[in-house]
């Protein structure tokens, strides 16, 4: 096992009616992993299990290259932060940070308290109590407190969920800077995909205690593995379709009575296979004309709903099926869109992600044979 790496292998445990099912993942030094999922998916339990608050039924956990599966939380060398930062209200800032410094078990040479406070720009807060701090100051104190113990891993449970949008964005920036400079791997749990997209190198999506998909953040957001993930990472349009033909990497998919050409190198399946077409509302272009010229599909559409959302306008089109579109308000004004207008909806081939429905194509030979029948 390489030093610095956090590895979770086959982690399984049962907690009443809930269970974590064979979670397998690793976090490299300096890497930030986001665990994403709806409420009840097991995100927090996963985090608490890594921290040592639940006994595993099976599997093992290594932190900093050291097996910790059977160690209690205080010997795992981790930093844990919660949404309200979890400062001890009865202790001053200095005493909060000192809590972790007094224990003799830490392996690495300790930084002095004053130095740490100065590094994080909170020296002037040392004698204050947490109640007198702003959210930003609280976050810094909580980070300093965790950092003081020289952790091998940072764990964050919904770090920003209690904050307003502006503070959230600012603290997110602070946190990213901090984590990048600390070089310590971090895992954070969130149900907010903005947080995940902004901070994470890799994303792991949980559902009912099992990993549904994990990979680089950009990949998970662009190419969800199934309908659940697609919804979760914010695809506004998830349309049922059927493969009607293929030429090279371009699939022709029938949705209602429209035919849509999409680039789908990831789908090896053949004819008549049912698929989901996933399209983000912002990836659809509006054209005055219904006829395509150049690449991409052009759908005949009628404007059904126009809803002003400030800088953006949310539009629902009827293309034989409903299509959610999001466009710049200025663009909509310039086009003179009105309800009932007949227009064209343009889809660049790369804007559409295709998810096969049912059994995934695990056997490449069978998949190839299927495809050749088209």
């Amino acid at each position, binding site marked *: 096992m390489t030093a610095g790496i956090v590895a979770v292998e086959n982690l399984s445990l049962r907690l009443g009616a809930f269970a974590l099912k064979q979670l397998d993942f690793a976090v490299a030094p300096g890497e930030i992993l986001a665990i994403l999922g709806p409420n009840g998916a097991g995100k927090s339990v996963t985090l*608490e299990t890594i*921290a*040592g*608050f639940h006994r595993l039924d099976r599997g093992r956990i290594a932190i900093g290259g050291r097996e910790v599966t059977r160690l*209690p*939380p*205080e*010997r*795992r060398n*981790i*930093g*844990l*932060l*919660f949404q309200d930062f*979890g400062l*001890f*209200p*009865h202790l001053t800032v200095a005493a909060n940070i000192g*809590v*972790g410094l007094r*224990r003799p*078990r*830490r392996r690495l040479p300790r930084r002095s308290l004053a130095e740490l406070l100065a590094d994080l720009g909170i020296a002037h807060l040392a004698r204050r109590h947490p109640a007198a701090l702003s959210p930003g100051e609280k976050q810094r104190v909580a980070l300093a*407190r*965790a950092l003081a*113990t020289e*952790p091998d891993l940072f*764990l964050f449970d919904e770090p920003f969920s209690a904050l307003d949008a502006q503070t959230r964005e600012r603290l997110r920036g602070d946190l990213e800077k901090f984590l990048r400079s600390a070089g310590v791997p971090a895992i954070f749990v969130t149900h907010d995909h903005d947080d995940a997209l902004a901070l994470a190198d890799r994303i792991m999506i949980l559902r009912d205690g099992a990993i549904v998909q994990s990979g680089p953040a950009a990949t998970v957001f662009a190419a969800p593995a199934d309908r659940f993930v697609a919804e979760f990472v914010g695809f506004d349009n998830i349309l049922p379709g059927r493969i009607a033909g293929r030429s090279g990497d371009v699939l022709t998919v029938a949705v209602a009575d429209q035919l849509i050409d999409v680039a789908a190198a990831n789908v090896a399946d053949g004819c008549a296979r049912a698929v989901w077409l996933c399209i983000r509302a912002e990836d659809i272009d509006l054209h005055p004309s219904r006829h395509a010229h150049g690449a991409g599909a052009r759908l005949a559409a009628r404007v059904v709903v126009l809803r002003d959302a400030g800088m953006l306008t949310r539009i629902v089109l009827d293309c034989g099926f409903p299509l959610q579109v999001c466009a710049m308000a200025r663009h909509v004004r310039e086009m003179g869109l009105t309800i009932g207008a007949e227009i064209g909806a343009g889809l660049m081939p790369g804007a559409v992600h295709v998810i096969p429905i049912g059994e995934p194509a695990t056997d490449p030979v069978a998949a190839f044979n299927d495809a050749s029948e088209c």
Partner: protein
Amino acid sequence: MTAAADPGAKPRWARHLPPSHPHGVFLVCWLLGGLLGAFIVVPLLALAATPSAASLAAAARTADLWQALRLSLEAALLTAIVAGLLGVPLAYLLARSDFRGKSLVAAIVDLPLAVPHTVAGIALLLVLGRDGIVGAPAAAIFGLRFWGTLAGIVAAMLFVSVPYTVNAARIGFEGVDPRLEKIARTLGLGPWHTCLRITLPLARRSILTGLTLTYARSISEFGAVMILAYYPMTAPVRIYTLFVGSGLDEAAAASVMLLAVSLALFILFRRLAFGNGIGAMGSR
């Protein structure tokens, strides 16, 4: 426009209230609350005014009255200490762990509040008395006798007043965010250190409130103490004997002494514990 015709003018009693407050509701609440306050304060004032200076002076010179008072205070203090040692751990269990029969245990803790105190005294006598299943071996092995001793007084006081400590401490522990304990663990504190340095200090106010209530309730206990340990006499028992034997005037004089001392101690304790007077009872 004259002041009297101003439609926004408030009645005198409502002048300090913000304009949005429901004055009618407050008026009724003030009346009823004032009635209750008078119900508590008037008898105590009447008591304080009853004994003549001469009988007060006579009472203050009575050695056995001071003895009874001292015994009451000592026994109540011991009771509060025992309640803290035995009650706070139970409160922690009730707040922090789940086990079968937890609600039964919680109900048992509240039971003394519902048992008439003379009944409690008789029940304790059966167990702790000369032939009781605890009283007999305790006397034989440790020489610890509960009848007619300080130990008996403390046992009787503990039985009737320990629920206050357990319940207040439980509420205190439940008010401590478990995530703070988790963070303490990840910072390197073991379970004992976490409990002593994080959980206990954060529940401190509630625990002290509970102990103060237990202490105050113990000083005032009469029924259970009288049955289990008539002798040596605590202050309430001594006052009862004065009332029966010597009449109202002497009993009232002794009562004023007990009232003054216990009130003074109560206020002192609260000041030591919370840095303020009686005003903030139970508030955070």
